[in-house]
């Protein structure tokens, strides 16, 4: 049976996950006595995943490019230089210039700083909001849960981009405001996931024991439920970063994000549109490729983290 190579026979792992866990983590082969921590085993699964390493490498390179690059590659990204507008890639301007004469390679760095900063900060804030909301809702249950979750349902029924567009059209966007708007519109799925975790965690013995000993609800939520849902939280936060970056570049592309002379990758694409029919490809491709690379890298890491934390979940 097992030698049957027919496609209908499920693989040995038999699960949907792509990366079959390496043999070393299979529960049966653990050497007795010498037990490794769950963290170590999770780390092993993560490191075994080549796509994850590729993602981490890519992300380090991109962060280095955006935040350290300007120290080595000096360009003026504030004053327009119309004499050298729309130059194709050549010596002096490896990626050409845009319609204001800004050097595109230098602009990729400074623009990337904003895209990455806003994406990261918004994802952290959204995760915090979602965890607090979801943990409280799931822990208390009953009416509180119903009310809190219906609010989440209602906000989820308005597509994020639509809601974010309305809010940024009301108040002119700054970097801080974009972070808040994106966080306020994207904590909802996190809240739902954490609520699910909290529902199953609150009946655990250690939570019950803590309550018997006189621990309060807040202690249960923040010291026991949230920390024990850490796997779900971290995996979700990772994907949240990718989504937040996509949302901020979308807003900037639509002209309602970061304002000139500051820009981000979405704003660079928006700017490049004016030259699109003239064949100024260098104003479109670099920023777009950076967005794609960042999001792919983060998604690789997120997938690998999910596999790594599943090792922990197996022990529950």
């Amino acid at each position, binding site marked *: 049976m097992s030698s049957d190579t027919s496609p209908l026979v499920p693989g040995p792992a038999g699960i949907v996950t792509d990366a079959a866990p390496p043999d070393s983590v299979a529960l049966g082969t653990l050497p007795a006595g010498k037990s490794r921590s769950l963290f170590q085993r999770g780390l092993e699964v993560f490191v075994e995943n080549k796509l994850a390493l590729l993602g981490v490498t890519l992300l380090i390179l991109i962060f280095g490019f955006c935040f350290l690059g300007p120290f080595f590659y000096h360009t003026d990204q504030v004053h327009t230089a119309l004499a050298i507008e729309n130059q194709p890639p050549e010596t002096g301007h490896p990626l050409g210039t845009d319609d204001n004469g800004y050097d595109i390679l230098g602009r990729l760095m400074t623009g990337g700083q904003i895209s990455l900063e806003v994406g990261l900060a918004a994802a952290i804030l959204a995760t915090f909001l979602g965890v607090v909301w979801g943990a409280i809702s799931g822990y208390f249950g009953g009416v509180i849960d119903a009310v809190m979750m219906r609010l989440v*349902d*209602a906000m989820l029924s308005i597509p994020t981009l639509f809601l974010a567009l309305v809010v940024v059209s009301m108040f002119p966007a700054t970097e801080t405001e974009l972070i808040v708007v994106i966080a306020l519109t994207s904590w909802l799925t996190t809240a739902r996931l954490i609520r699910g975790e909290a529902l199953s965690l609150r009946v655990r013995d250690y939570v019950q024991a803590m309550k018997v000993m006189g621990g309060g609800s807040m202690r249960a939520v923040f010291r026991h439920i949230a920390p024990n849902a850490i796997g779900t939280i971290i995996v979700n936060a990772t994907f949240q970063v990718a989504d937040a970056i996509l949302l901020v570049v979308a807003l900037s592309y639509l002209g309602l994000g970061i304002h000139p002379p500051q820009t981000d990758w979405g704003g660079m*694409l928006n700017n490049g549109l004016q030259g699109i029919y003239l064949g100024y490809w260098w104003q479109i491709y670099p920023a777009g490729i950076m967005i794609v690379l960042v999001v792919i890298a983060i998604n690789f890491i997120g997938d690998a983290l999910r596999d790594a934390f599943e090792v922990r979940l197996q022990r529950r």
Partner: protein
Amino acid sequence: MIAYLIRRVFQSAIVLLIVTMITFILLRAIPGNVAIAILGPSAYRNPQAVAAFNAEYGFNKPWFDQYLLWLGHLLSGNLGFSWTLDQSVASLLGQRLPKTIILVGESTILALIVAIPIGLWQAVRRNKATDYVFTGLSFLFYAAPAFFLGNVLIIEFAVNNHWFGPEAAQGGWLSDITDLHDQALPLITLAVLTIASFSRYMRSSVLDNLTEDYVRTAKAKGASSQRVLWRHVVRNSLIPIATLVGLSLPAILSGALITESVFNYPGMGYLFYQSAQRQDYPTLLGFIIVVALATVIGSLLADILYAVLDPRVRYVSS
């Protein structure tokens, strides 16, 4: 089943009610004074006119009464009035919504036609070259924002090669369906993103079903691999896909907003984007309610469809 339906519809109604509250709060959060905005800056010197305006339109009432008044209008189909376009939001919606429905409908059908065979093929050839290639492609396209993909398509296929038009069809609804020269690029842009996620779903759905007991039973009874796959696995794997379409509606509508803006397609999403630029709040908030209604109905239909297709759900939930 009936009890489940009633409970689910009731829940949706409550969700929609909360959406109207959120929208109303947004409406109130808009900076500035409505009376001044409509009467003009000279009204600052004419408090009586402002007071008369406020009395006529109910702005002098407590906010809860204002909400009920507004909700009453909403329920009778009055979505608001766009002062910028001098048109009621409902009539704007009548012009723009059909175009978005055509674009979204066509691209979703296209996405399903492409994604289902790809996902199935990937699952059958799991961890072989084809699987890796399509997995890589779906990662790539999942990460490519619609505005980047759309502009790349314009550069490559409308500017460098004149195969397709750079702009979506601008005629009546018939040309939206028949004018493939102009509609191809927007359709592909919107479909590709959906294909990336649908094919992943189909792949894992088929893989899930391949490990089920009924597959082993069917094989043990002597059914050929082909028969097991087509008669049993594919049919069961399609159940989650049917509901996925309903649940993907928010993402597809966001994609449509961007696609319509990139290709200058006069649908609802493009008007929404223009309204955001013009700060045309009545249109924005009217459309928000319509979009939320569409999303809620989409997920309601998805749930009902799931319960119809998969009898186990009915027993669990009731």
